[in-house]
């Protein structure tokens, strides 16, 4: 994966240079390179500066597996508009003052993505996607001898821009031939804060346990995502 990532970065840089120099000098038809459907697998890394995240991590990064699906809805010359959606899954665990903690985050984003092709194998995109996240925070409470949880939904918005480079595909093939894309994007993901009042599940632990109040958790922050996509 690391080799692929470095190669993608080099190719992306080279492509951008080429695009500036020769954006109008290609005879290749654009339309076959505009993906109709695209499925991606990638890695999303967010920086979470919120103090509430310190309970679950000794650094600010949150890495998530990212699965994406996009479909082109409309095309006009170099422009196209797609519907895109991502499911990001991440888990982070730590130990605070002798107690183990764990955070599991599912994030679902879906919305429009605008694309502009600089070259047939290279397009830039921006998207603004409403986000729905479910977080499950847990604390192994050694004194109460029970696991405590705080499970919440939160809502927000992901806004990002990026580029996609076609690393494999027929140079002038038919529209529905499989093509492989390397994609990179960066942006900001906003999510509302959720409470970190951790309580045992019903019937677990001592009677009438008061919640352990660790404040709140906001998973908002800048993020970067690299992915490989299959499109046709």
């Amino acid at each position, binding site marked *: *994966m*690391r080799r692929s*990532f470095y190669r993608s970065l080099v190719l992306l840089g080279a492509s951008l240079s080429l695009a500036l120099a020769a954006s109008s000098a290609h005879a290749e038809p654009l339309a076959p390179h505009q993906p109709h459907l695209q499925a991606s697998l990638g*890695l999303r*890394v*967010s*920086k979470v*500066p919120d103090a509430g995240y*310190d*309970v679950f*991590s*000794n*650094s*600010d*990064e949150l*890495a998530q597996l990212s699965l994406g699906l996009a479909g082109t809805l409309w095309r006009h010359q170099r422009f196209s508009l797609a519907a895109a959606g991502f499911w990001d899954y991440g888990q982070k665990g*730590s*130990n*605070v*003052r*002798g*107690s183990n903690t764990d955070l599991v985050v599912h994030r679902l984003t879906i919305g429009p993505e605008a694309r502009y092709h600089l070259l047939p194998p290279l397009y830039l995109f921006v998207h603004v996607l409403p986000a729905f996240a479910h977080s499950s925070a847990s*604390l192994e*409470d*050694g*004194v*109460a*001898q029970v696991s*405590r949880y705080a499970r919440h939904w939160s809502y927000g918005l992901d806004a990002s821009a990026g580029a996609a480079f076609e690393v494999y595909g027929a140079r002038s093939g038919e529209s529905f031939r499989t093509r492989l894309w390397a994609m990179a994007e*960066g942006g900001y993901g906003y999510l509302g804060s959720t409470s970190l009042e*951790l309580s045992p599940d019903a019937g677990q*632990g*001592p*009677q*009438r*346990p*008061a919640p*352990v*109040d*660790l404040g709140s958790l906001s998973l908002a922050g*800048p*993020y*970067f995502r*690299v992915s490989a996509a299959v499109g046709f």
Partner: protein
Amino acid sequence: MNKLAWLMCGVVTVGCGGRPSGWDTPYTPASGQNGLSAAYGLTGSVAVLDPSLGRVTLLSSPAQLKLESRSIGLGKNLVAARASDDRKTLFALSRGVQPQRTPSDERPQLLLIDGGLTPKVSRAYTLTEPMAQLVLDPQNEWAVVYGGDGVVVNLNELVLVNLRQTGEDALSSKTLLSFGGSPRRFTFTTPLSVPGGDPRRFLIVERDSDLVLIDLASPSRDAVTIPLPSADNGGTASLAQVVYDAASASIAVRVTGSTSVLLLQLAAPTTRGEDYSVVPNLVDVGGQPAALDFVHNSQGLRLVALVGSNAVLVEPETATTQSVQMPAAFTGIRRITAELEPAGDGDVALLYGANVSKIAYFNLSGAPGALYRSIEPYDIGVSVKEVIDVPGEKFFDHKILQTPNQQFYVLDLHTRESAPMKTNGALSLEVAPDGERVWAYSSGQFGFASVDFASLHPVSLIAERQVSNVFDIESGSGQRTAIALHLGAWEGTGIGATVLDALSPSTAYARFYSGLELGGVK
């Protein structure tokens, strides 16, 4: 994958940041050694020391069964903490950053924390050198810090902290002249009526081979050092007990291995420049005394020395003695005149002992020739290790007699009735500051109990986790709250508590709190 994540993180931002180191520092309860207890009961809060983070977590109860925690930094390298006698203040002594490398490094300090319903730092005194020991005045006017572990330590240097003042003016350093000893125990007197001057308080410093009197009215003046008498075999005696009588400005000193008692009379100054003089007198009481105290009988002040099965009364001015046979060899004496308010003009004392199964009331208001009739014994069947006072106004005439085994007695001094209470384990007692009940528990056990002084009805309670301490504090609703701490010394690490209504304790309504060590981590 992790390296890739970090690389991407660097692309996204300048850095991924970290978290406060406190999160990576496990909570470890103070061991009870070296002047630090795991927890202290204050009037409106319970202070739980968190030495690894250099802070105290204060638990208060804003409403019935509610618990609120807040943490206050105590300074780096905490070495001693004490609660004041009235439980209103927690004193914390820290060494600061040692060795000091920059001018901004934290200095050694003595911190005072108000232990009311809203705990807060009330005062701080910055010290010039790190000290290791802390002694508090029961009247909250003075504190003494001393000792240390520097390259060179003056063992006889005391720093007196005048708690009525703030800043540097409050601190005065005093080096005691020494014949080779170092401070062992401290006694703050009440104002002594020294002839030729206003009543003044003294600090009596007990050392290996002498004692030192420091006049707290003018601590900068020279202290008076009084050497101890030798033991009867010619060897070195060590100091065992110091008692005083405020009205007559008399001090009595018991030393080990000697049948003599050293009497010190503070008198008017005899030379210019003195504030007072000390007249010593050595009195043979006929045997090695086990305990001393000053009492008043119909003829005036007497020193009582418990010698074997006799009580020897010493007339301080003439050193004449009078002996009275006791029904047992008592080793402890406690004046209970204030609690009984007797009609006569003499004191009443409670006699007890760790090796006898009796207690006795020693009434000194009778005729001097009838002392044998003034001792009224009661066989309670167990020995008494300690007599614990009950504060407040309602049951001030009650005493708790702690025995060396698993029992304690609630003694009503007026009716002279004692109520034996048997426990099923080792025993720790915590008298509620309002003086209306006592809590009994055994650290590490699940069970604890409350005994209400009005009904003498014990309520046994079984916590869901092992109990390390029990405290009784005032709650915000004006009620009383009992807090049974679970400090995680047995399973898990952390600060937990079972919170109950102290006036009507029941585990059926108790609330369980934990994770209290996680609040306010920086």
